[in-house]
């Protein structure tokens, strides 16, 4: 049995990579993918703690996170399509219509 700390470290590293990707990428689909990485890191942490404490609640919560991720992906990608249709670009720096 691998100690739980390894899973937590891996979760933290994955979350860090997700945050990093969210900050340095300029393509909006890449930003959505980074969000997925962060959600997955959190899921890993949830399951690690759930197994550690022998409680089912963590895995139930992972289930709900999954549902939210699915909804987020659906709405986000619909927005991406609408944005691409209007702007002909996926670069978030170029979508400055709301900028004051």
């Amino acid at each position, binding site marked *: 049995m*691998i100690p739980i700390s390894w*899973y937590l470290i*891996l979760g933290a*590293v*994955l979350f860090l*990579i*997700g945050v*990093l*990707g969210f900050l*340095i*990428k300029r*393509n909006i*689909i*890449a930003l*959505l*993918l*980074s969000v*997925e*990485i962060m959600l*997955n890191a959190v*899921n*890993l942490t949830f*399951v*690690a703690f*759930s*197994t550690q404490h*022998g*409680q*089912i*609640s963590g*895995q*139930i919560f*992972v*289930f*709900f996170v*999954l*549902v*939210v*991720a*699915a*909804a*987020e*992906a*659906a*709405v986000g*990608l*619909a*927005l*991406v*399509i*609408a944005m*691409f249709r209007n702007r002909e670009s*996926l670069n978030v720096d170029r979508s400055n219509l709301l900028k004051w």
Partner: protein
Amino acid sequence: MAVGAAINVLVQKHVLYSALSVIVMLTAVSVLFVFLRADFIAVIQVIVYAGAIMVLFTFVIMLLNLPADEDGVDRLRWLKFIGIPLGLFLLFLIVATLWNVEPLRATRAEMVGSPKAIGTSLFNDYLLPFEATSLLILIALVGAVVFAKKDL
């Protein structure tokens, strides 16, 4: 492996390769879920995440038809020589594993991550959040259709 794939997501220039790397990362994490004895979550991860959500991503990426890399053809040529042996090796590995697999011993009935335990908990203690989730899915569905329509 999960970390390597996640870093690859950032390194890749084309977003399609990033999406494929994310699939690799999701699968690696689901293997970790199996290690953590959360079988149901692992299966759900592969089916819903790597299956449904990432197919949606790749579908949209290909639908938008983003400009490809300049050196795509050249890299594909030597990737073929690496990819075919690796694929055959993976096939050999799977066959060897399936060959040696033993019949399942008496399963731990009261496992923490079993589908039965999750279902019992989900429909007893967490019934209201579960129903709220269905509402959320419905709203997301309608919202996605509205956003993707031709004229907003």
